[in-house]
């Protein structure tokens, strides 16, 4: 029975992906992609990867969808209707065959995976005690392979610098304009009522992430979504990107991470190794700082480059 369920899910995913490619309606494609993200979240839950399911639902179904919808609205404003891309006949046969070959090759690899599957689960469980954590995925992210997470945070900051640098010269250091021209009344209500729940769920995710599925990225994404909702409804303007407090918050998470890393050289076995006695409080502390900085970075990535000149 569960196999039937999986087959239905997979069929839905592929149908939605095909719809995204073939449909002419740009916004319909984005809505289909949001639905794709929701289904994919269920798929990850079926693969027993609840941590990934949480991340995919929050980012794939939430933030990416909003990013794309905003971009679509912007393009519709900027581009004259006659300059919109027409669906002219293109050569599609050769690319289709090539992409089909890629799929076939990848599928053959999937079917030819080694039979006793290699797994690092034993090692992950064996050293779990030294970290004081209960969730092996969090342990991998913040203890065993902490360097990956650190570098990922730096990639996020670099992407934000890249996005900001696409602003006009006059707007550098200013704020993004998120508020639409007309704000429907229910949106304001939503932006007043939903954020308290969102913050509660985010705190819960960080707290529970040490021992159960959940953690920093999921919580950061929820907080980012709530911040965007508030800015969207015009309850609070987007912060000017030159504000010192904002920049400190964004850099604070990775900076603390690097600091702890170098402390590890001094008091433990090396860079990013934690003294065993205080490993868990240290990890939870890093998580809290990272959550805020991830939330800020993600929200500003969606908000886009600043487009108002900063107040003098």
């Amino acid at each position, binding site marked *: 029975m569960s196999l039937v369920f999986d087959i239905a899910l997979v069929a839905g995913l592929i149908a939605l992906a095909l719809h995204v490619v073939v449909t002419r309606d740009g916004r319909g494609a984005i809505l289909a992609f949001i639905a794709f993200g929701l289904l994919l979240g269920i798929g990850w839950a079926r693969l027993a990867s609840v941590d990934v399911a949480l991340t995919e639902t929050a980012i794939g179904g*939430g933030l990416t969808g909003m990013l794309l919808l905003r971009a679509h609205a912007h393009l519709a404003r900027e581009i004259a209707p006659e300059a919109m891309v027409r669906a002219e006949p293109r050569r599609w046969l050769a690319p289709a065959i090539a992409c089909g070959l890629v799929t076939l090759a990848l599928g053959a690899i999937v079917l030819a995976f080694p039979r006793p599957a290699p797994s690092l689960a034993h090692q992950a469980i064996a050293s779990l005690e030294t970290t004081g954590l209960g969730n092996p995925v969090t342990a991998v992210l913040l203890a065993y392979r902490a360097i990956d997470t650190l570098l990922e945070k730096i990639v996020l900051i670099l992407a934000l610098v890249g996005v900001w640098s696409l602003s006009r010269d006059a707007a550098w250091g200013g704020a993004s304009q998120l508020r639409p021209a007309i704000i429907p009344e229910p949106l304001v209500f939503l932006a007043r009522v939903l954020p308290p729940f969102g913050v509660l769920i985010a705190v819960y995710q960080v707290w529970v992430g040490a021992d159960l599925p959940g953690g920093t990225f999921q919580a950061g994404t929820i907080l980012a979504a709530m911040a965007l909702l508030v800015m969207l409804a015009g309850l609070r303007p987007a912060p000017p990107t030159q504000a010192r407090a904002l920049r400190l918050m964004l850099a604070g998470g990775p900076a603390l991470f690097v600091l702890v890393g170098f402390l590890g050289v001094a008091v433990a076995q090396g860079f990013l190794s934690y003294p065993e006695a205080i490993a868990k409080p240290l990890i939870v502390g890093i998580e809290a700082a990272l959550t805020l900085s991830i939330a800020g970075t993600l929200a500003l990535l969606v908000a886009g480059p600043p487009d108002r000149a900063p107040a003098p």
Partner: protein
Amino acid sequence: MPESLTLTALFVLLASAAGLAIVLRSAIAIEKLMAVQLLGTGGAATLLLLGAATAQPALADVALLLVLLSAFSCAAFTLGESEPPQAATKPDEPA
């Protein structure tokens, strides 16, 4: 019991996905949004049923997120919708 719960989950998923499949091919943009909303709620129900069927209580957290964010994407959609296409003032660029 787990079998019948999985069967119900499959049924709910199919019911909400079928609406999406048909609406996406025709119809107006807001109706597509409605179908996505239905899929969001249906997905949450599916996850709750699966969580009960496979004794994974953590799936309820995923359902919680799904419910929270389906309202969010609806709000994001109104953003593009509420502005007339040829607005005199372009908020993103100076006039």
